[in-house]
């Protein structure tokens, strides 16, 4: 995957803070896009763009926590950093449990903020990477034939070729051929890698798909 530059999405209803934070982050070398309200952010949101979200908690209309919920429901895993004017413990616990990366109080020092942002961007990149990998595994799985898929299932459950042949009603030689084709299609070198890939794809037990 080509690495798109990560963007920091900033949502705060106070114009002065938006301007100041944008300046700070730009001076630190980041790419920033700011929005005055969660609705404005949602309208323009493209989940494919890598980056993290810096959110003010207390905003009229949809507030920060609710935006977090909306994004989670829509399946977007973009890391969120919360900024708040109050040091509210219950709120911060709630936010962290819902998956926020960090919960910072205003006024926020630049090093603290940047550290959190870098952590968030890193998390975002790794998530994307994982996602991308998973996608490619799934793509490869899709290229397997019905028979090959069956063989894969039996293989990763640890059965010997002989046993697999007996289960599937064919000879060992055929199984060996299928196995080789699966390894090639799945682009793995070792059996352990195949198991891992299958694991990642969610194929763990001998079930009918």
């Amino acid at each position: 995957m080509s690495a798109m530059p990560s963007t920091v999405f900033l949502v705060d209803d106070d114009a002065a803070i938006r301007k100041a934070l944008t300046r700070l982050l730009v001076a630190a070398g980041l790419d920033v896009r700011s929005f005055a309200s969660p609705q404005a952010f949602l309208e323009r949101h493209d989940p494919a763009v890598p980056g993290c979200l810096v959110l003010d908690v207390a905003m009229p209309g949809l507030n920060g926590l609710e935006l977090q919920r909306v994004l989670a429901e829509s399946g977007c895993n973009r890391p969120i950093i919360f900024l708040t004017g109050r040091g509210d413990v219950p709120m911060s616990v709630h936010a962290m449990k819902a998956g926020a990366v960090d919960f910072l109080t205003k006024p926020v020092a630049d090093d603290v903020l940047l550290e959190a942002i870098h952590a968030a961007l890193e998390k975002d990149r790794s998530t994307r990477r994982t996602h991308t990998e998973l996608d490619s595994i799934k793509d490869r799985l899709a290229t397997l034939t019905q028979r090959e898929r069956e063989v894969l299932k039996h293989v990763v459950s640890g059965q010997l070729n002989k046993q697999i042949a007996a289960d599937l009603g064919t000879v060992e030689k055929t199984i060996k051929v299928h196995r080789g084709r699966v390894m090639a299609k799945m682009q793995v070198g070792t059996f352990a890698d195949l198991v891992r890939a299958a694991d990642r794809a969610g194929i763990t037990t001998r079930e009918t798909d």
Partner: protein
Amino acid sequence: MANNVLSSMANASEAVVPRLARAVSLTLRVLLVGLICFLGTEIGFAHKVPPHNISPLWPTVAILFSVLVVTPVRHWWAYVMAGYFTSLINDARAGFPLPSILFVIAGVLELLVAAVGVRLFAEGPRAFLRLRGVMVYLGIAVILAPFLSAFVAACAAQPDHYWFYWRVWFFSEALAYLTLAPAILTWIALAGRAWKPVFFANFLEAGVLCCGLIAVMITVFCSTAASDGRVPALVYLPLPFLLWAAVRFGPVGINTALLLVAFLSISGAVAGRGPFVVSSPDENVLSLQLFLIAIAVPLMLLAAVIREGREKTMILAESEARFRTMTDGAPMLVWMADADKRCSYFNKPWLEFTGRKVEQELGEGWAEGVHPEDLRRCLSTYGAAFDARERFQMEYRLRHRDGTYRWIVDCGVPRFSEGGVFAGYIGSCMDIADRKQVEEQRRELTHLARVAMLGEFSGALAHELNQPLTAILSNAQAARRLVTKEPPDLAELKTILQDIVDEDKRAGEVLRRLRLLLKKGEMAFDAIDVNQVATDVLDLAHADLASRCVAVNCQLASALPMVRGDPVQLQQVLLNLIGNACDAMTATETTMRRLTIATQRNEDSMVQIAVTDCGVGIPEETMSRLFDAFFTTKQQGLGLGLTISRSIVSAHGGRLWASNNAGRGATFFLALPSYNGEPS
């Protein structure tokens, strides 16, 4: 029914007895008058001056006239009949000769004209107490009545003596009205009034006067005359005594004295003595009559004038005494100043209050007791009002005799003498120390309520301060990074610094508003824009409203008239209403929470602010107790917010009330009188 008949019978029988008594007394009085008139006629006859037997003074008609003036009109016929009874008998015996009939008719005519005239225009028997009364009496009874009746009476004479008899009748009747009737009437009037205690000295003086007058009269008028054909100068000797009577004893004195003079001089003339016997009998009578008229008229007028003057003085003295009693007895402090601004009078309560002597306070001494902080304002208000000749009211502290200063309210009004001449000021002061204390307590309470309310908003206020601080920090830290770049972007840095300054001001503004609200000041009334107040309040409450997820709808009318009030206190009221509205909506779903602030101009030109929520509304049973002190439906809170809000609004001359909406929730209305910019 039987009761009514019985009671009316009882009333009738009750009324019969006094009616009977009245009839009896009337009859007696009529008989008495008849007797007196008979005597008068006899005396008149006895005093006819030979040879024409002219009577210088005819008593009967004057007596009857006096009676008619003081009795009710419906009884007049009885008195007239009684008065003329004997003459009518005599006339009947003589077969009703025409002259007698004419005299009777003339007499009755004269009586009626004089009596009716004096009753209508000169207050009856009290005529002699006033100058105007005396003049009317002279005009109607002395001149007009005899004048008219003389025309009738003279018809009894032979045609060629008509004018002679006219003159005789006129003068003798006129003299009777001038000397006899006034005496009778004044004594009747005196008997009618309450007797003042007569001092022995007065009595003695009257006695001396009488004796002196009689002695003089007898000497001059009743002794044998000199026969040199001239009226001696001694004839004026009675004058000093008459003057004495007029000045010292008023109308009573002069009328009585004149009667004496008339009686004695006429007696003397009839007996052929005195100064009026030097010429022909007709001339004598005429001179005597003229003499008596000449001294009677001016002296009667003089007596009336003196009497009026005395009465005025008495009324003035009484008024003065009343004033003093009132000012010394009232609980107010009263002062008076002359036209030169210097004070000339302080009542007893004032002197007791300050514990000073009146000499110390007179002039400008009173100002020493005024509290030094109030002195300048006090003197300038006083001076300005004085120069404008307007009433004023001011409050200041005056030193009490125990050394402390107490607040008093001083109201002064200008006074003008007759003719509109400015005569100074009169003022009264009340001790308002208690009222001031209550006001101070109320101010304290309002302040405490405001501070407590701001405490509820404190979280939001902290947030308000936090925003600019955050912006400033991030800007500064951004600038720090940019400064290290090579080359530094000076334009960007300049913008950043400007933003920092702006944000600092923003924070300062929040703090300034907060400080204003926390200050415990006096109410500072000024012309304010209600829309501005509403906007400021919404700014202040903005963060709190946001954190409670309350959406605000602002409907501010344009071109609203200004209102006269204290912006801080009005903000307090609005904050209270907004806080209550938010509390009412805690049970409402967050997306449905809506607060509406609307300003408008009412039909009666009041400016109205409405705070509407969509919460739980106000239950009917609590509606009437909403503004009561210590009434609250909340878990926390004293229940004073609305009470204080209402008292603030009342102090602004406005109204605060609530009503439930047609749909959900309630609305609180605040109406304030508009202010057109003129000083109140």
